[in-house]
């Protein structure tokens, strides 16, 4: 994310002018802004006007609007965020207080004003605008007949493709051929998906994770195919592939993959790994000493109010 202008006075009041450039930036924005903040951006609005003949005419007008944020709608996969709230700036087309929804997209500048930029927001802002990129990695979590191709950025995971096909299991020699054929077809689909979704010039590592022997068989097949078809991008980046164990082929296995030492040592410290660690700590406390572990807004607030909280209490709010 590019920081275009920053004006925060010493009381913490002020605004920043930002331009999101990657999907991850939207994730940061999602965490940066909160209801009550003011958002200014260019936007379109349909304006109804009465023309000379007395008919109603609707016009799409490009405006620069400021709204007081009330609702934030964000789907990490969609690379778009919708923010709505009442309009707080004077405008010839739209009344003050009329509701409007601003779409934030990549490469669209906007300004966020807060009454108070606290340390959390400022840290987030620093992190988001830091040009030194965190490790970008891709991961393929797979099992027989099921694969998830996803991108791992510093703070989020984006599922790019889900491949599922039915692979016959073993039942006599006749269907064994069917099994092998189906599994090779499945591997080919995964390879195709990797080539389509993973940009090898950006990612530093590609994690191939699966239970059992699937990952090894897949790697072998992929490299053999790359040799045969002379897929240079795969051959050149062979060193980037990292083959690790996972307990299943589902997306949520990624959690344990990122926490495993072989991955975390290879990747620059991703946030996910740290978060997984914190979560594990929390769970350990919850299991061993439930009276010291709290989750949920109410419980955490109560714990905080009673001043009993210290560093050992992991505060995790379920989203």
């Amino acid at each position, binding site marked *: 994310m590019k920081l275009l202008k920053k004006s925060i006075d010493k009381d913490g009041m002020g605004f920043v002018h930002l331009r999101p450039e990657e999907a991850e930036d939207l994730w940061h924005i999602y965490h940066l802004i909160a209801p009550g903040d003011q958002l200014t951006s260019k936007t379109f609005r349909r304006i109804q006007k009465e023309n000379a003949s007395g008919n109603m005419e609707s016009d799409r007008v490009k405006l620069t609007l400021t709204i007081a944020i009330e609702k934030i709608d964000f789907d990490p996969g969609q690379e778009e965020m919708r923010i709505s709230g009442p309009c707080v700036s004077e405008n010839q087309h739209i009344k003050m207080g009329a509701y409007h929804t601003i779409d934030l997209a990549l490469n669209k500048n906007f300004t966020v004003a807060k009454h108070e930029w606290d340390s959390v927001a400022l840290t987030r802002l620093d992190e988001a605008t830091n040009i030194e990129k965190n490790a970008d990695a891709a991961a393929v979590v797979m099992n027989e007949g099921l694969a998830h191709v996803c991108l791992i950025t510093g703070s989020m995971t984006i599922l790019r493709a889900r491949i599922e*096909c*039915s692979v*016959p*299991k*073993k*039942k*006599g*020699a*006749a*269907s*064994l051929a*069917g*099994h*092998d054929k189906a599994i090779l077809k499945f591997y080919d689909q995964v390879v195709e998906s990797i080539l389509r979704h993973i940009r090898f010039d950006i990612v530093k590592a590609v994690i191939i994770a699966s*239970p*059992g*022997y699937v990952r090894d*068989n897949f790697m072998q097949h992929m490299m053999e195919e790359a040799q045969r078809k002379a897929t240079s991008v795969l051959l050149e980046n062979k060193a980037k592939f990292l083959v690790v*164990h996972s*307990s*299943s082929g*589902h*997306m*949520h296995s990624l*959690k*344990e993959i990122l926490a495993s030492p072989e991955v975390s040592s290879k990747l620059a410290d991703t946030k996910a790994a740290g978060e997984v660690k914190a979560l*594990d700590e929390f*769970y*350990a406390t*919850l*299991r061993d000493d*439930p009276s010291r*572990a709290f*989750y949920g807004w109410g*419980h955490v607030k109560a714990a905080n109010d009673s001043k009993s909280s210290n560093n050992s209490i992991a505060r995790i709010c*379920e*989203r």
Partner: protein
Amino acid sequence: MPPKKTSSSVDDDDFDDYDNDGYDDDDSEVLNAALEEFYDAMEDEHPEIIFKEDEAVTWLRSSNYDIDGAITLALNKSKKSTSTKKPAASKPAAPSSSKQPPSSSSSKPTPTTSKPSTTTTTTTNKQAATKNIPIPASVSAMGKDLCAPPPQASPSSSTSISSSPTPFPTSTDDAIKPFDFTEPSPDDLISEKQRQAFSKKKDGSTNTSSSSSTPSTTEGIKYKQNVKTSAPLPTLSSSSAPSTSSAKSNVVEKMATLKLDVAQHSAGRRKELLESISSSMASSSAGKDHLNLVVVGHVDAGKSTTMGHLLFRLGQVDAKTIAKYERESQKRGKASFHYAWVLDQSETERDKGVTIHVGASHFSTDHHDFTLLDAPGHRDYVPNMIGGAAQADVAILVVDGAPNGFENGFMCDGQTKEHAILVRSMGVVQIIVAINKLDMVQWSEERYDTIVSEMKGFLKQSGYIEKNVTFLPCDGLHGVNLVPPANSDGLPSELKEWYTGPSLAEAVDAFRPADRNIEKSFRMSVVDVVKPAQGLSGALLVSGKIDSGFVAVNDKICVSPMGHVCSVKSIFKSHKDNVEYAIAGDNIDLALVPQNTTLDLLLATLSSRCILCDPAHPIQSSSRIRGQIVVFGGRVPITPGMAITFHAQSLEEPAKIKTLLHLVDKATGQPTKQKPRALVEGHAAVIEVVIDRGVCLEKFADYRGLGRFLLRDHGKTIAAGVVLELL
């Protein structure tokens, strides 16, 4: 309740007519009261007679509101109509049919005291006169009947009725009238006919009779509207079924389930099949019944080798094949794996010497036919093993008796414990513990006893009853104590000294038969789908275990949750024997021919998520369930929002813990603590789970096999449960 518009207009017309003739202004009130009473009387005394409201009005008027007289008229009419063989019930779909009351008017609250006293005065003399009235015979005769000579009792009214061309506007055929949506539209008629064409194959239980087969969903809804209004003049109905209430219940039932108007087989066929099943079961009660046997245990305990060797000893595999496997396995440097190759057939499995998929094989003992399910022991393949255990009725737990072998499997992260618990959680109660590789400790009795006592304590704790657990020593690789000594080389002298119990084959033979749900609707969970190589073009080969009910060749079955209907081309038991039918508990391959989809689509969608079921009573898919679980403890406590993997049958789906409702006292089953914050090892609780995609499950109370599930996280089973409710 305000009367419907049409009926009130009818009354208004009549007012004008009758007014002149000295009728009271409150004629409609009198009429309504009389009508109610008449309906009541008819319902009680002659429920079989079907009539229309305007007919009833005519009868009442002609008998001067005398109920008995009207009933007599109705009786005459019904005689006539049956003789004309044109029951009104046969044509409810005709758009020209005029207003009819629902025949079962019992739902209409009718005060019996509503008979107006004014009418009673003229009862007797009118009654005789009414008998001369021509009786309306059928719907089409309505108009004519209305213009017929009026009853003598009201001669003055005759002119007014006949002079008024349309006293009942809705009953004239040629009048243009707006469609009031109470009658079936042309589209409805077509779909109705299509439905009827389908329902011919249906068994009789859903259709009360041929004449009652007509009430369709739309009519059911109409009926409900009538009940709601419950007007004194319920003119808005074209339903003419003799038992509307039963039709309604049918409709409700149909709407509650998936809409599929296909029956698995006809009623006659079902009866025939049930007879042949029960006769064959009676005859084979002294003979053999079928059991699914799963073999579980820690990786490298020797499951595949032991079972491969058992199959060889029982003659299922010939010596030539074994010799071939021995040669080939030696070539790969896996010399001791040749018996395992009987069950491990894929290249990866043979290369690595590890079972990956559940291998299925078949053998027979004196009392049982077995489907042998050889489950993988490796921790990564526990999901596969669960699929095998879900099909099983009985189990063999193979324990490595070699030095450190038992400890590796039993302690810390070994699979011996996990498998034993999983198998129990999937409903297996009878288990054999085969302590393998005891030759490595020179058949030491002490070693055997130590393992037995350790296992006994653990199994009891896991919910096994002592009498259902059999312990025996064996050596899978060398074939010691697999089959009775008479057939084998005899026991080694060290073992002979202290062991007198059964061999593995004898112990397996001593299993009690399992309970089978043959009476319930057909359910079969899909384990594997293959495109058959040859001979069965246009069909898919689907294998699995029948959970309940039975299936026969030419049956129509439904593939849930997609709702594809397939017909059964053939059924294979034990992979080869072509049979006419298969019952609950059988492990079969079905050749399915898709009916309402293409083969490719079916192949693409048919997976272990699917359940094959009876199309008349299909299984529902749900993505949110309430279940009672027992927590085994995992890496972390169970909290709401936790992402887990949901296992049931052979399916495996990502899911989330939605809410922890309450803890359950294990002894009493009573709820204890509401809304616990987290669940840890040993807790029993009722929780809600949201599964990413809808899965086919049943309540545990209805179908035991389909109501069990397991929750896994990070490659560990954290909880087992049963489905209480599908939400």
